[in-house]
């Protein structure tokens, strides 16, 4: 166990280092944007009106002070880390003075809920079908399912989402195509709200599952078809073990190991949001927030969202590394 503790320590320090570097890169990237939040605010405020040019100059000065953009880059960097250490990302520059943390907290549950459900469903379905297809090579139905999964996989997600929208929102309008829940409903722990939540999530989840299924399917199938030729499988078959048992305990169990890695990574990537899904289905979440923040040059908000995603993905990668030895006994850390 001592070898593992050393490995753990090393791995944890790697984690901290990566998070630190990642957030720093995010800081540089967001502050290097040529979009000036003050100019964006002014443009939005004077867009339709008839504003005296002198007034605009005065406005610019006031906004710079208000948004705290007076100091140089180093000052802003120091302020940023001071704030982050207490979990505060500062006020949003395009929705001043609402704190970034509040905006993210509002959108986060939607993104996490949607993507968690979709990722897990497509993982389970994809691996199940892929495993079966890889093992029962001669089954026509599974072979056909493989072709269908393959055909769907490369279709750009935007098209898949939109076609579903048109099919179920227009041609056969049975499902709602906008929003996270019915309009004029107050979010509460009642059956009507939960039913509405469920109905509004069907199309987004369906589109994400259809888009993600193919990848898991093909990965699992190729892994399984590799394992099927292993000696121990042939031995078990010859030994008369029930084929379903072979599939479950021998083949899938081993094939799933890299797929679990993939799942952890995908779960970490959830926090980048599903921008196209939110756009097409009008679904609330981090994606829309991120895009509108980028357009408004709102450094604080973009930085907040990307920091959350950096931490989430790092945790996922860490978790994979720490648990991989337990999943695959062949890989043990040497002392």
């Amino acid at each position, binding site marked *: 166990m001592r070898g593992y503790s050393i490995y753990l320590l090393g791995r944890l320090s790697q984690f901290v280092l*990566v998070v630190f570097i990642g957030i720093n890169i*995010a800081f540089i990237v967001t502050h290097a944007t*040529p979009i000036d939040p003050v100019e964006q605010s002014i443009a939005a405020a004077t867009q339709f009106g008839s504003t005296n040019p002198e007034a605009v100059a005065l406005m610019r000065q006031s906004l710079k002070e208000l948004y705290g953009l007076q100091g140089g880059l180093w000052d802003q960097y120091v302020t940023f880390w001071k704030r982050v250490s207490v979990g505060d990302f500062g006020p949003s520059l395009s929705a001043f003075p609402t704190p970034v943390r509040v905006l993210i907290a509002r959108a986060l549950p939607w993104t996490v809920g949607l993507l968690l459900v979709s990722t897990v469903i497509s993982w389970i379905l994809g691996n199940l079908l892929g495993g079966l297809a890889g093992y029962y090579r001669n089954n026509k139905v599974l072979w056909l399912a493989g072709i269908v999964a393959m055909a769907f*996989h490369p279709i750009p997600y*935007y098209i898949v989402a939109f076609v579903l929208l048109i099919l179920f929102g227009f041609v056969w309008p049975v499902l709602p195509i906008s929003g996270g829940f019915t309009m004029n409903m107050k979010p509460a722990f009642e059956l009507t709200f939960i039913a509405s939540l469920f109905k509004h999530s069907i199309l987004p989840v369906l589109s994400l599952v259809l888009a993600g299924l193919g990848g898991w399917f093909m990965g699992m199938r190729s892994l399984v078809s590799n394992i099927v030729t292993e000696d121990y499988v042939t031995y078990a078959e010859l030994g008369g073990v029930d084929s379903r048992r072979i599939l479950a305990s021998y083949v899938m169990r081993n094939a799933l190991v890299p797929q679990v*890695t993939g799942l952890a990574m995908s779960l970490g990537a959830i926090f980048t949001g599903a921008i196209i899904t939110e756009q097409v289905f009008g679904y609330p979440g981090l994606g829309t927030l991120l895009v509108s923040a980028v357009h408004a040059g709102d450094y604080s908000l973009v930085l907040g969202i*990307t920091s959350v995603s*950096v931490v989430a993905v790092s945790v996922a*990668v860490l978790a994979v590394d720490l648990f991989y030895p337990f999943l695959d006994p062949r890989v043990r850390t040497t002392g």
Partner: protein
Amino acid sequence: MMFTIFRDLFRSRGAFAAGVVLLAFVLLIAAASLVSPYPPNDSFVVAPDLAPSWPPVLGTTSRGQDVFWQLTFAIRNTLLFGFIVALVSRIIALVVGLVSGYAGGFTDRVLMSINDTFIVIPLFPILVLFYFVMRERMSWTLLALAMACLGWAYDARLIRSLAMSLRTREFTDTALFSGMNTRQILTQEHMPYVLPIVFSTTMNNINWSIGLEVTLSVLGFTDINTPTIGVMIYWANQHTAMVAGIWWWIFFPVLLVVITFIGLFLLAVSMNEYIDPRSRLSRVAT
């Protein structure tokens, strides 16, 4: 048993043949761009919104362009783009993954830290920033290189985990004891096991880069002067083609992408079976 092997072989050769045919078809269309009667960026050179018929075999767009000739340029640019991204990122992923998985220890730790940083970097803000900074000087090759640099990390990890499990296998020790150096072991012993994974990740990578290109185009962060599949969808969107009933503007580019992918897949699957030492053995036996 013999019958099963025969059938597998047939199927794999059939898959190979089918894959070659599909890809050749796609490449032919891409090559047709060299003889296009219309310059790729001009609009209103034919009557707009015509349904597929003769001569506009795939119809015309709302911008007055022939869908077929646009598609030749689009698929050519998209394939070039996907190919560059895949090639560059595979090379990086292979090198990093194999070295890291085999060497272990400090090298592994350093390489994985770099790798993790690349995995962790938020893709979208970086690409958007890249787009803003490059602006007029932005070219598809530059974007391809940028995406290649961002797309190797995940696959490197995959290769690394495979390399790690290969290292513990008996034949590795055998090779080591028989005096092969690291480079020889990596290229001659491990590569054949790794290549099938590399092929399937290549396909995924091409798919990913095309998907990302389409996403960026749909959101508008793109150079609209060069036709690619993503740019075609961008323009179709601008003209609300789906709702206006101009389905051919979207259907044919998507169909071509699907054909490309299926072709690549068939090729990859049949080549996997050919290269994988274990299936080779099972074919030789009896």
